[in-house]
């Protein structure tokens, strides 16, 4: 029968994805970029929608929530997975509401009037069955996938609005978005890029070689020299792993220092982040926020005699508060950090913040 086969095939796919996530998160930085993770997650969700057994929107949402919880538990630091799941849940809600005939805005907005008067609407249980719902949801997810594929290009198209000629731009580590951004600007303008290598993973080296191959004049500096050269830098452009709900960042190690140095010299800090990185999390206590990898990166095993007597920390991420950020550039345009909460309410439904 096609049913069980499809189901086993589906479970296999999900298991494969989960083990990939688990493996990819340990060691020297992400082996795959966040964009690929987002695309794979969305493709998998589309498959689940297509092949799993469900009769109403509520069932589908339950299935997706269950799988989603497993996926986020496999790699908590990879927030794009959770973001995509929440996007798909919102899509389902929207499609359901459209099928029911009620306008989307009325459902979405949580005005004080609605809270007080019509409490029944928020107890929507999505039990009604609509035949075209499946097709609609799959179509919407396809649109989401197209949007994901075009994010990097959309961001790079804005490059010339932000970079003038003879500028000195500083960046840290390796971000594919920023790389595409700078290469696009380099086609028309001449500028100089300084890359901080971001020890211990030293991803800045790869970034620098890629940029210099595109003909951009690049300099690699050690992390310790960030403040020393900051006085000659005109702009700081960085990528990030996650954009938090308050407009802050969870970015690679060393970004907070870079942001503080930029603030001291009043240099604008621009973050290139596509919308799928926006996460409804707030910066939590240290133990849920930070991720550590093997201290061998920092103090290798060759330093044998002292290893047992020393504590070594190797955090991967840094928190950057929103006061230090000047501008977010995303695939839908540029925003101030204070606007992020509004974008978030458009992308995700408040009930989905906790999966």
């Amino acid at each position, binding site marked *: 029968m096609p049913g069980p086969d499809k189901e086993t095939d589906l479970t296999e796919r999900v298991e494969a994805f989960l083990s990939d996530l688990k493996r990819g998160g340990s060691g*020297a930085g992400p082996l795959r970029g966040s964009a690929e993770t987002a695309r794979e997650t969305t493709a998998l969700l589309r498959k689940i929608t297509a092949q799993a057994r469900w009769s109403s929107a509520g069932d589908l949402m339950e299935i997706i929530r269950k799988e989603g919880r497993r996926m986020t538990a496999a790699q908590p630091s990879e927030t794009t997975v959770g973001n995509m799941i929440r996007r798909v849940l919102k899509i389902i809600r929207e499609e359901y509401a459209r099928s029911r005939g009620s306008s989307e805005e009325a459902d979405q907005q949580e005005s004080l009037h609605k809270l007080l008067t019509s409490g029944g609407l928020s107890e929507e249980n999505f039990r009604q069955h609509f035949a075209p719902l499946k097709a609609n949801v799959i179509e919407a997810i396809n649109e989401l996938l197209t949007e994901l594929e075009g994010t990097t290009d959309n961001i790079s198209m804005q490059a010339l609005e932000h970079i003038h000629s003879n500028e000195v731009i500083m960046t840290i580590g390796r971000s594919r978005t920023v790389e595409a951004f700078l290469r696009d600007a380099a086609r028309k303008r001449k500028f*100089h890029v300084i890359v901080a*290598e*971001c*020890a*211990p*993973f*030293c991803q800045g*080296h*790869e970034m*620098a*070689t890629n940029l*210099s*191959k595109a*003909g*951009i*004049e*690049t*300099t*690699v*500096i*050690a*992390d*310790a*020299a*960030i*403040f*020393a*050269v900051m*006085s*000659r830098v005109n702009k700081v452009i960085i990528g990030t792993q996650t954009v938090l709900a308050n407009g802050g960042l969870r970015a690679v*190690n*060393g970004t*907070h*220092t870079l942001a*503080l*140095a930029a603030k*001291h010299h009043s240099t604008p800090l621009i973050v290139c982040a596509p919308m799928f990185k926006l996460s409804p999390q707030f910066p939590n206590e240290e133990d849920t926020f*930070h991720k550590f990898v093997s201290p061998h990166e*920092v*103090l290798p095993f060759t*330093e044998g*005699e*002292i290893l047992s*007597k*020393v*504590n*070594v*920390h*190797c*955090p991967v991420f*840094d928190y950057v508060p929103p006061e230090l950020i000047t501008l977010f550039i995303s695939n839908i345009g540029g925003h101030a950090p204070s606007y992020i909460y509004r974008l978030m309410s458009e992308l995700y439904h408040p009930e989905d913040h906790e999966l």
Partner: protein
Amino acid sequence: MCNSFAFYHFAAVFLSLNYLLHGNEKKGDIERAKNEGKELTKEEKQRLRKEKKQQKKSKEKKDDKAIQESGKETKGDSSAVSAPQPSTQSTAQKAVPAPVSVPAPEAPTPAEKPPKSKAELKAERRARQEAERASKQSKKGDPGPQGAVSKSKAATNELQPVVKRLPEHIQVDNPDVLKKLAKKLERQQIPLRLDYGYKVSLFSHLHQYSRKAPLTQQLSIPSTVIHPAIVRLGLQYSQGIVAGSNARSIALLHAFKQVIRDYTTPPNEELSRDLVNRLKPYISFLNQCRPLSASMGNAIKYVKKEISNIPSQCKEEEAKRKLLFCIEWYIKEKIILAAKAIAESSIEKISDGDVILIYGCSSLVNHILCEALEKNRKFRVIVVDSRPRLEGREALRRLVQRGISCTYVLISAVSYILPEVSKVFLGAHALLANGYVMSRVGTSQIALVAKAFNVPVLVCCETYKFCERVQTDSFVSNELDDPDDLIVTRNGQTHLEHWQQEPPLGLLNLVYDVTPPDFVDLVITELGMIPCTSVPVVLRVKNVDQ
């Protein structure tokens, strides 16, 4: 005004004297000076008033013998000074105080004599040299304009408006300077070290050498010009075997002691002058191996001063003994005892339960922490380190061996670890006269982040590292290390291996950076705990003492 008339007269006399001294002097200069002399009288009047005030002060402190002595010195001095300075501006300057000094034969120099002894010594020495030269040329001039010269010298010495010559190592982009340097090195028979690799455009005024091409490869063995102890020292510097400003200074002074022990005065030469000339090529050689640090510069100044102060009647053995003793005294007093004093003051700042953050490997800070441990303070240390030098590992080893509990992170993790920290102790390479702290690259970053987290930053520095330079950023005067140090192999991949073949790619390996004084809360020296802005005060006090 009779004053201006007298001044004009003496100006004319002095100018004519000048003209006689230099055949090249054109007559036009004198006409010009005479004309300018009229114009300048108003300015000169202001100066006259100033001089009169000084005169009044000097009359309070009278020293007859000093006056006579200074009178003789200034005569010699002025005759010497008049010889090489034919410019009209300076003559106008000298001519100014002429009418004042004539009625008052005692020069105001005795007033400033006690604090001015160093200046007077300098003037005396120069006078002796120039007098020998000038005596062949000049006739016996008027005491008037010569007294005037002394007056102006005293006046200018107070503010010392000397424009120092720019050091060569920050003028690499100027081809004339490079040519001069090449000629000087050729004369001293020292090989010239070539720059290596593509230099980032912001730093094209600095040298960038490769560690794989030490200077000693180009020297012949045995080297006749350079003492072997100095050759060894130069190699240790350029390979990074001896690093850290205290270590480098002590090694330098020990090498100098060896040089002095092996030195013999050639016949018909004075030890005080010949030894100084012997040291010059050594210093150039060491400078080529690795640019001298501020502490080394101060140590060399001290040694040269001691050498030139050896009286000529002194026997060679005695002179050598004296010099060796002076050098040992310097090391003991300025470095070792200073470290003890600083440790004692710093231990008051360390309380039980403290979490102290240190950066890199500073011998002074390590010493302080070990002393604090001896005094049974309970604290733990966080060592922050940075690529590519990774000096923090050395500090970590030393502290762990003494039994201090340590944590180790890289500098990119400093904003993660700072919420735990209660104090930051930093070492310094030099303290500049405008209050900036010059130290290993990364120090300013740590101070910045500590300030953002409201953690106090304490800098520990001996006074012999105080330097009269001023600097506001880390670009104008810095050191560029070997750029190949930044290359690293991870997961079997070396991305930057062929960086030289990709023309727009540059690697920057800075050695020093400057920390602004608003990031530093306290500087602990052997003279006490001072704020960063008191550095010029300490320098002034030191100059007066010497």
